[in-house]
């Protein structure tokens, strides 16, 4: 198993706790964008947007690159992989549990016992 040195998850949760930052992630999901265009889109000052992007960048959710005078942002490779994996692991476990529970419930239904 390759282990990636990801930023800790609490950074990404903190980063995602803000509606604007979630909006930025959505936006970048459609394609990369410059800080300036993000600031326009979210009706924010350039400084405000820079701060938001910095938080997302520290969490590994966004990567930025400066070309000339324009800083372009795009989604980080990691995305929400760890979170998705956690949810999927839970889903698999409960799926297996609930299938077993289905069988028992079917048995109980057949017995017609319901006191």
């Amino acid at each position, binding site marked *: 198993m390759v282990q990636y040195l990801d930023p800790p998850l609490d950074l990404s949760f903190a980063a995602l706790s803000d509606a604007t930052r979630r909006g930025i992630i959505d936006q970048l999901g459609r394609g990369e964008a410059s800080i300036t265009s993000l600031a326009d889109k979210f009706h924010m000052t350039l400084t405000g947007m820079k701060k938001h992007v910095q938080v997302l960048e520290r969490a590994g959710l966004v990567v930025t690159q400066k070309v000339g005078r324009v800083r372009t942002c795009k989604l980080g490779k990691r995305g929400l992989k760890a979170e998705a994996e956690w949810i999927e692991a839970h889903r698999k476990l409960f799926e297996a549990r609930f299938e077993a529970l289905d069988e028992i419930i079917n048995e109980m239904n057949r017995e017609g016992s*319901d006191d």
Partner: protein
Amino acid sequence: MTEQVERAGGTQNGTSVERRGDRELLVTRMFNAPPSTVYRAWSQPELFQRWWVPKSAPGISLVSCDMDVRTGGKYRLEFGAGGSDTMAFYGKYLEVVPNERIVWTNDEGEEGAITTVTFEDQGGKTLLVFHEIYPSKEALVEALQGSAVALPEQLEQLDELLPGLIG
């Protein structure tokens, strides 16, 4: 109940798992039986232990299962993976309303979640909602980190998962 919940892929035969906010986990599922039946399968230890640890978890078994399902009652589950070591999960029932809801604590960890399971009648079927709320964002993050790493062995993965889930 045909609500489409965004999931992390996989098949979709009814079990949905979501995070709500930064402290909550929500699992929902429909069952083809009235709440009284599903409640019995959840509250009677001899039935509960037949499904809580899925057969697909190789090597993990429930060594003991004590459940006194009533408000103020206690539970203790011990899991073994073949060796002499067991993992215990325990807590108490904060609220029990037969056929409707069970609320319990998870006391084996530092910051245990409060788990609520509700059984809702939907025309003779049951909508089961399993809800877990952690005392802090950090506690959920910790639960996440414990199991977020993709592990090579399913057994290990389940090992990582169980502490946050057992009720």
